[in-house]
């Protein structure tokens, strides 16, 4: 049975949840791809997402891998269109309207109101991610070290993630 329609539905829906970034959609991404459709396991999703943080460009391109696993190259393409299509069309329309909205007072209200919501959703995504990724003293130490180093020094996060891969390979 073709999974293409399900891929379109799932990723188009997830697309609309990515307020403030891809992580906001993570809890639903997990439920839909792992629990509902069994396209991959939770550890696989965690690993793909983490690998995606090392890739350049938009940080949700890992969805391409899910599409490819489920339905080959066509699946990969379908997932990109479904995930980025709705928000891109919205951005195109709002971008043109925004100029005309000019000093519409609700513009700032929406911006101020969405800031805490998007940070809350980012944290919520992080918690549901950490439930699988942080499972003991070693992983907790790696997470804490990465967090502290990033706050203290200006360093490219991709390098830290690479370093964590080496630490992981040596210790686990």
């Amino acid at each position, binding site marked *: 049975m073709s999974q293409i329609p399900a891929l379109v539905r799932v990723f188009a829906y997830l*697309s609309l949840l*990515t*307020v*403030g970034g*891809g992580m*906001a*959609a993570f809890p639903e991404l997990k439920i839909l791809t792992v629990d509902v459709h069994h396209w991959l396991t939770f550890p*696989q999703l965690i*690993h*793909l*997402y*983490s*690998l995606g943080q090392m*890739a*350049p*460009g938009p*940080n949700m*391109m890992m969805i*391409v*891998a899910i599409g490819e*696993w489920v339905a080959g190259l066509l699946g*990969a393409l379908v997932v990109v269109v479904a995930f980025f299509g709705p*928000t*891109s069309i*919205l*951005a*195109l329309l709002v*971008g*043109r309207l925004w100029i005309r909205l000019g000093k519409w007072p609700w513009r*700032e209200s929406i911006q*101020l*109101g*969405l*800031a*805490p*919501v998007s*940070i*809350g*959703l980012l*944290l*919520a995504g*992080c918690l*549901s991610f950490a439930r699988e*990724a942080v499972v003991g003293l070693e*992983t907790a130490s*790696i*997470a804490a070290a990465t*967090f502290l180093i990033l706050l203290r020094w200006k360093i*490219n*996060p991709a*390098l*830290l*993630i690479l370093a*964590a*891969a080496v*630490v*992981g*390979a*040596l*210790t686990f």
Partner: protein
Amino acid sequence: MTNPPAAPSATLLQIFREFLLIGATSFGGGVVAYLRSGLVEKRGWLDDRSFVELLSISQSLPGLNSTNMAILVGDRLKGTRGALAGFVGICLPGGILMLLVGMLFHEHGDYPLATAALKGVAAAAVGLILATALQLGRKSLGHVADVVFVAVAVIGVNRFHLSVLTVLLVVGVLATLWYRPRPAGSAP
């Protein structure tokens, strides 16, 4: 301020190439910094004011900042086709890379060494996301009410397992109403 900025000229190929370059080099997140240096400093397609304005539109909409910016900037420069050129450019390098990584991972992901390395990578990703949340929070949370909205969103999703969509709509509308336009002098 009296003269509207001259419409910068850019061909579709130039737009595609610039976003392709950004899409191929912006390692480690923080695509915004790469966008600014490419679009404002190097190409001069936008001034800082329009860059910040487009960025604030990107951040107020669903969708990733990086792809929303590619759409908005591409559209400013060359209409719908420019938006498409920017979007394809910024997605192509990471997309192809993740396609290959995904295929490799599917074949070899269960080797013990790969599993161990990925365990480290996933833990580091948690640290990275937390750091991002804190940095964003320090920049944009100014009011006690903001902390309440953050907490309600987290508890709603993680504790009560509400769908992200529900939380987004309910808390988003409440927070927007909280910051509703008021006459000057009576801000919350």
